[in-house]
């Protein structure tokens, strides 16, 4: 049976394709995709490219069997499907960052800007602080610079963007990496095929680590 895979397009796609190749998948059509979003040339794997949160929507609706998506999205969206494998690529982490004059011990209810309200809420819950969260859709770094928020919670890979905007890290939150997620019923219906894919990926990851 064909496994239907939803792959997060963009950065995740670029980082994970070499691993998929090492695991034996033919990734040529995806590399030369043009404007294509659906790749069904291979009878074993059909692949679609989608935005991260949409990968989970396709998976939850049963339209796709397997999703490849960042763990930031899995946590933020409270993913109910099987988060089976950490693919160990696309590594980055969440930070709490702000301008140099920010005082983390500030004795008032802080305002935090973020693209990830759930993850931000989780973090401040664990340290026992209540904050006001403002959802921003992109370029979160702007918020403390123009006085909308006291600090931000965002994903950082190299830290270049923070430095360029004169922001500094005040706390490291959870790490992020690309994960493989499987629809619960699809795992039953296509057990053999999905187990095979996972074994191949695990082996490819071991080879890559050597």
């Amino acid at each position, binding site marked *: 049976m064909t496994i239907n895979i939803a792959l997060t397009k963009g950065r995740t796609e670029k980082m994970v394709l070499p691993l998929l190749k090492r695991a034996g998948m033919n990734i040529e059509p995806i590399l030369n995709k043009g404007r294509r979003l659906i790749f069904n040339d291979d009878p074993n794997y059909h692949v679609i490219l989608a935005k991260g949160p949409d990968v989970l929507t396709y998976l*939850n609706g049963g339209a796709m069997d397997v999703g490849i998506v960042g763990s930031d999205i899995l946590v933020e969206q409270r993913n109910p499907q099987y988060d089976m494998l950490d693919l160990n690529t696309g590594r980055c982490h969440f930070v709490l960052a702000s301008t140099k004059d920010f005082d983390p011990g500030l004795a008032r209810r802080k305002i935090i800007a973020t693209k990830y309200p759930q993850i931000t809420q989780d973090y401040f819950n664990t340290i026992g602080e209540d904050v006001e969260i403002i959802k921003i859709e992109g370029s979160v770094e702007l918020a403390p610079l123009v006085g909308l928020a006291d600090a931000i919670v965002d994903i950082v890979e190299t830290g270049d963007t923070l430095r360029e905007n004169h922001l500094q890290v005040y706390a490291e939150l959870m790490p992020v990496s690309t994960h493989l997620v499987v629809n619960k*019923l699809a795992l039953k219906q296509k057990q053999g095929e999905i187990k095979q894919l996972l074994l191949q990926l695990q082996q490819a990851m071991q080879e890559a680590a050597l």
Partner: protein
Amino acid sequence: MSKRNLPIGTRDEFGPLALKKVQLTNTLQQRFIKAGFDPIKTPVLEYRAVFDAMAPTLESAYQFLEESGEPLVLRPDLTLPVARVMSTTGITPPTKWCYVGDVFRIKKRHSGGYNQITQAGVEIIGYPGSKAEAECLLLAAGLCDDLGINNVTLELSDASFVDTVLEQLPEVARDSLKQALFAKNLTKYAEQLKRLPQSPLNDFLAQWPWLFGDADEVLAKIPPVPALQQAVANLKQTVDFLKANAPQLQLTVDLSSPTPQPYYTGLVFRAYAKQSADYLFSGGRYDRLLSSFQQTLQPAVGFSFDVDALSLALPDTKQPQPTLIYFNDSQWQQAQALVQQTPNATLCLDDNLRQAQSQADSLGAKLIDLTQEVTQ
């Protein structure tokens, strides 16, 4: 919100889908009643406390406050209300109930999921023996068969298995291992496993997240731990019983997943069709069902069909071409009799033949003109 919008997660049902669901619920209910189950209907609105045994999934229920301040919910489950009835009305078991009704569970907004699901099922209360499970299994499998749903895979499990295995391990390791197992998070599971001391169970534990699939293959992989043998024997007995009595079913066993609700105690079963995106029916034994209502427990077994999933799995039946019957006021008896005899026919209530004909044309229907037959 405009008065022209539906609340998120709701839908209207009409057309072929509505017809299918009506026919389906009728078939199910008639079959249950024919098998001697008594219909029971509980209210859509209940006190939230009735569903305490469902926590933490109770968070996804629609909640309200009664004037007194007591929290109410639109029922998220149909089994617990039956338990409430049993413990408060003095009905003496054994009893067999059947029900059809809607349950309400809030899905994620804008995810395409519906919050109102129709279920049809049975509860057998007061029989501790395996005949109760057997009746449920044969009833459910037989209905799928009659409805023309082939390729049904029946998945068996045992509610005590996972905890019995975990009891063999150091107490500190149990919770996190169970969590990783249920989430099928192979990465975390492997990390947890590394922290365990060497034991004869290690080979089994390494394969545990994959302990589902063909019934005979899975049951052959169970380690010879004495505490597990009762559950394994029960499953084997059920597998043999089904092979003999429902040979059309594909049988699988899953010993690595959580039970559908926390109140299950023994055999758990669920079924899906090859193409379905949801389980068609699920059920099992829950001998502690009455525990949230009273001290004395009653053995109980039950299952329910997800009528929405079932109607999607039904083979499409092609409706015959519709027929309109045009008649005049003196022909009511004749016209009504003809409607009964003709498949997919209905009375045409137009007052002149021209309107009737254009009505029939727009529906692609055949028009029978009874007034014509009189004049001829």
